[in-house]
């Protein structure tokens, strides 16, 4: 355990000192990895228990647009706007989640209902083009460096914020993982009736994890919007974002705490690497490879990269144990 604490401290120290020497482009990548890693982690909190939501684009879109609109039209500080956006996303999650869980809308059906939700949010934002700029997107009114407006041209601030957010995401993951709720949720995802029969409040457990997941996703969307200072319905909501979230989480491995972050790391590096390698000659190259990787991942390692690593480790431990056993004999 001590060795792990040491690794943790060293890792955090490296992450903490990076902004002192990293060039802006590198910082930009890191911020993206941390923020997407946070959002993917939030999605996996539901996904790992078998609730595959294709609606997280909706939560992200609401979380990003509400504070931006409030700021632009009524000069409301994001410190109020972000909680309002998160609250709205939670409300949305409840409005969709409660009937879904009550009526046992599961599997395919759950995925498709949530897909419809993310389309509703994206199309609503596009339709309200008079205030949101429609598919052309919108920019927040810039005021330079300001805590009040949560705008920092200096990337180091957003690096710190993303790092903190990411750590919060991991902490929440750990909380769920350690809490009694996890066993309840695992039981539910195995067999709902049996879980209910042993006295698990199925509805409460499901709603709780849904609300947490939606709230964190909305928060991630809000910070992402503040960082980019540009919002577009296609890039923060809708089917494309929802699928992107699901896939990165799967590639990284949604059953491990760091899996979704690994997914963010790999997908963003892959994207950037291919973009640099092919320049703009091959716009689709990155996603072509990405798509093939996804299919291969789901077929050959449905538990993702972290799942694969885990399996290798388990096998090695088993082998060592086996050797020890045979040595004694």
């Amino acid at each position, binding site marked *: 355990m001590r060795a792990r604490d040491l690794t943790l401290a060293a890792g955090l120290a490296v992450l903490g000192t990076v902004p002192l020497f990293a060039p802006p482009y590198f910082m930009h990548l890191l911020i993206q990895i941390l923020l997407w890693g946070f959002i993917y982690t939030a999605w996996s909190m539901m996904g790992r228990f*078998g609730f*595959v939501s294709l609606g997280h684009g909706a939560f992200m879109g609401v979380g990003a647009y509400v504070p931006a609109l409030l700021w632009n039209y009524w000069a409301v500080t994001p410190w109020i706007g972000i909680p309002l956006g998160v609250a709205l996303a939670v409300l949305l999650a409840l409005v*969709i989640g409660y*009937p*879904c869980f009550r*009526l*046992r*809308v599961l*599997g*395919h*059906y759950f*995925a*498709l*209902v949530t*897909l*419809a*939700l993310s*389309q*509703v949010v994206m*199309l*609503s934002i*596009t*339709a309200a083009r008079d205030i949101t700029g429609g598919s052309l997107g919108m920019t927040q009114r810039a005021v330079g460096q300001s805590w009040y407006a949560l705008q920092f041209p200096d990337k180091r601030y957003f690096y710190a914020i993303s790092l903190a957010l990411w750590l919060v995401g991991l902490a929440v993951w750990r909380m769920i993982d350690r809490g009694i709720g996890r066993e309840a949720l695992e039981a539910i995802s195995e067999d709902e009736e049996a879980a209910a029969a042993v006295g698990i409040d199925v509805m409460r457990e499901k709603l709780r994890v849904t609300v947490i997941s939606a709230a964190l996703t909305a928060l991630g969307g809000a910070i992402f919007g503040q960082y980019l200072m540009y919002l577009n319905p296609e890039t923060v909501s809708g*089917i*494309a974002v929802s*699928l992107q979230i*699901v*896939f990165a989480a*799967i590639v990284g491995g949604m059953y491990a705490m760091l899996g979704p972050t690994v997914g963010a790391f790999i997908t963003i590096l892959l994207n950037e690497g291919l973009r640099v390698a092919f320049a703009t000659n*091959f*716009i*689709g*190259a*990155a*996603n*072509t490879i*990405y*798509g*093939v*990787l*996804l*299919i291969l*991942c*789901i*077929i050959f390692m*449905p538990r993702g990269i972290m799942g694969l690593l885990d399996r290798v480790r388990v096998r090695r431990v088993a082998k060592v144990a086996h050797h020890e056993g045979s040595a004694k004999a």
Partner: protein
Amino acid sequence: MDIYLLEAIINGILLGGVLALLALGLNLIFGVIDVVWIAYADIVMCGMYVVYWLYVELHWPLALACAAGIVGTAGLGVLVHLLIIQPILGSAPINQLLATGGLLFFLQSFATLIFGTEFRNLGIRLPIIELGDIFISYARLLAFAVALVGAVALYLFLKRTYIGTAIRAIAQDRDIVGLMGVDQRRVYLVTSAIGGALAGLAACLLSLQYDVHPFIGNTFGPLIFMICVLGGLGDMIGGFIAAFVISQIIAIAGYYTNTELSYVLAFTFFIVLMFVRPRGIFSR
């Protein structure tokens, strides 16, 4: 009644025909193989590009280009089944859905790689029919008629042929059918080919009306899923009717508001209906 509203309703019915055709294909695959091809609309997109490429770039006759498009998507359907679905046939259904989601990414970006993101069309302008004060596009009328013929042909195929009967039997009970000596693998392949061919047929009809671009699947793909689920996944007649319900909502709401809001309304209607009738409108 307002003449423009009437026009919107008629156009809605005509659009419903093509959507119904697509819903039929998706429902067939779901009913038989128990898989949701989330990339179904992108197979349509591939078909549209094949027609475009053969007709515009290689100057094939249109009929031949369309036939090649249908054969091509049928082949694509078989490939999807062999390469993606078959290896994970035994795993959770949601994994299969997600694997075809990877296919969606792949097809969209592959099309971007080859054709770029420009909108392309066949450059065919079909005449517009005037009925009194109502204008109906000939392309839509043709699409509607062909879609209906396609649906009837599929019905006859399923009812009258041996393999069609086997397909229906598998949709009813996949365990027993094996005992009756039906080769399940072959039925799955045929089903995938038919599903792909229906997507190709729809692609031909759509390429007469719309420009093709790599992301066209995103605009009507979600609609097709909604239609299938509304009709009850796997229920072909339900899906057929639901296609017209949805296209009417879009047409009429589009007449009173705008395109995006009409889609918002259609999706909201879908969500609400899922809660009222979780297994489709026509479930008992």
